[in-house]
């Protein structure tokens, strides 16, 4: 599948790879260069492959609250929240952003690889007074991220970018929200698919550098933002993933709640930990074995050379007793083990 920006990616020198069935740019000028642009000025990412669902009707808020972990009813109109869709075991099916557009009108943005599965899962649990529409094919989306994103926002929309995160600006069929996946200031902009190419051009003209999936991954990993399918899985709960703040156990019920309550009572057995290599080592990659005290205990779920830090970094589910910052571990690369250390999240702290 291709996004409305496929030709624009080729024109910008994008190197195309397969991502969950989508032909997406992994990089243009180079991952290090694009990463630096987002940390120091601004970059623009095509996120049109992500899914958009509209949920409406008088039962919409209560229906979302019966299915997702976060509290949709408590969400102010014009605000957005991170939320999770769980299975009965409390494992993660998908992570998503819920926008509240009106009292009875929500927009859900889901992962590209999960659009069909999420839509089927939601529709299988349909309730009265709820309307659901999978509008993924009708929308394009861009993420503009970096310290210069506010200036770009002003050029594009003729007003100041909200300083607060998770603010939604609706302009007809355009939805702009101050969210992102990089740790920088910025916004994500959802627009009708036919307007995506001109929106892309306007972002470039306003000074954003084209950035691909490669930089998106190194940027989010420095912030320890999980990636579904890598760091999140149907066999791991949000409590294990360190996402408890996005789970409202005070709600009457939601799919997976009972399992989470039981896990919390019994003690969360593993924690998704941030690791940083403490000696010269090859870049860390997903599925590298992690050793503690001479025993292999787990494997990395994500890993990279951090362009900002210059060291290998990774995420891994460690047994709770080994999950405290300062815990020493070893990461195995091609049969050799390299020293690393559990660090406080996020791994990258913006210099102020």
């Amino acid at each position: 599948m291709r996004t409305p920006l496929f030709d624009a990616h080729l024109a910008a020198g994008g190197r195309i790879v397969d991502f969950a069935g989508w032909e997406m740019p992994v990089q243009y000028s180079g991952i290090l260069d694009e990463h630096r642009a987002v940390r120091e000025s601004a970059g623009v990412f095509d996120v049109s492959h992500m899914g958009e669902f509209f949920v409406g009707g008088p039962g919409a808020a209560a229906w979302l609250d019966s299915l997702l972990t976060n509290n949709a009813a408590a969400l102010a109109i014009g605000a957005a929240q991170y939320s999770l869709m769980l299975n009965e075991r409390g494992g993660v099916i998908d992570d998503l952003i819920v926008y509240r557009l009106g009292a009875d009108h929500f927009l859900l943005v889901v992962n590209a690889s999960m659009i069909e599965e999420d839509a089927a899962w939601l529709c299988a649990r349909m309730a009265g007074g709820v309307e659901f529409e999978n509008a993924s094919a009708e929308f394009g989306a861009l993420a503009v991220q970096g310290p210069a994103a506010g200036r770009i926002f002003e050029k594009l929309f003729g007003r100041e970018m909200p300083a607060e995160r998770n603010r939604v600006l609706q302009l007809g069929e355009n939805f702009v929200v101050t969210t992102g996946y990089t740790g920088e200031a910025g916004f994500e902009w959802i627009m009708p698919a036919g307007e995506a190419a001109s929106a892309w051009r306007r972002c470039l003209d306003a000074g954003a550098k084209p950035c691909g999936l490669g930089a998106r991954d190194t940027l989010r990993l420095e912030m320890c933002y999980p990636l579904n399918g890598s760091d999140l899985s149907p066999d791991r709960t949000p409590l294990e993933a360190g996402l408890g703040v996005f789970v409202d156990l005070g709600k009457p019920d939601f799919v997976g709640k009972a399992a989470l309550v039981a896990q919390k009572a019994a003690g969360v057995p593993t924690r998704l930990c941030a690791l940083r290599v403490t000696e010269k080592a090859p870049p860390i990659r997903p599925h590298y074995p992690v050793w503690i005290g001479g025993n292999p205990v787990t494997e990395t779920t994500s890993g990279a050379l951090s362009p900002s830090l210059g060291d290998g970094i990774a995420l891994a589910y460690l047994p709770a007793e080994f999950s405290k910052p300062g815990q020493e571990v070893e990461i195995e690369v091609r049969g050799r083990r390299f020293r690393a250390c559990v660090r406080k999240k996020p791994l990258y702290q913006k210099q102020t």
Partner: protein
Amino acid sequence: MNVPENLRYAESHEWILVEGDTGTVGITDHAQAELTDIVFAEPPPVGKKLVAGEVAAVVESVKAASDIYSPVSGEVIGRNEAVEADPALLNTDPFGTGWIYKIRLSNPGEVEALKDPAAYRAQIGA
């Protein structure tokens, strides 16, 4: 794409400069462009005996690890510590300061099986 005339090339994108019974090995301009930002390089230890086609070194970009195969058989007699310290040399100067290792050829006849510049140019469509 730069394909110097004085080198021979392996299909797997290594080059070798043969001087007497000694060869200097690196990766081609085409290979470094494909790999992009190279952030790690590990040349083989001096004294290591390699068979043609065997993995001699590893280079890694931000995105992926790639094996470097020895184009010829022999014993490693030099390793470029500069690329270990500054792997970006593989991107900026792949045929010069970005060389990876030197090898004493045990079977110089193997060089004849490698591609000449014209054949390698044809392979990469340059």
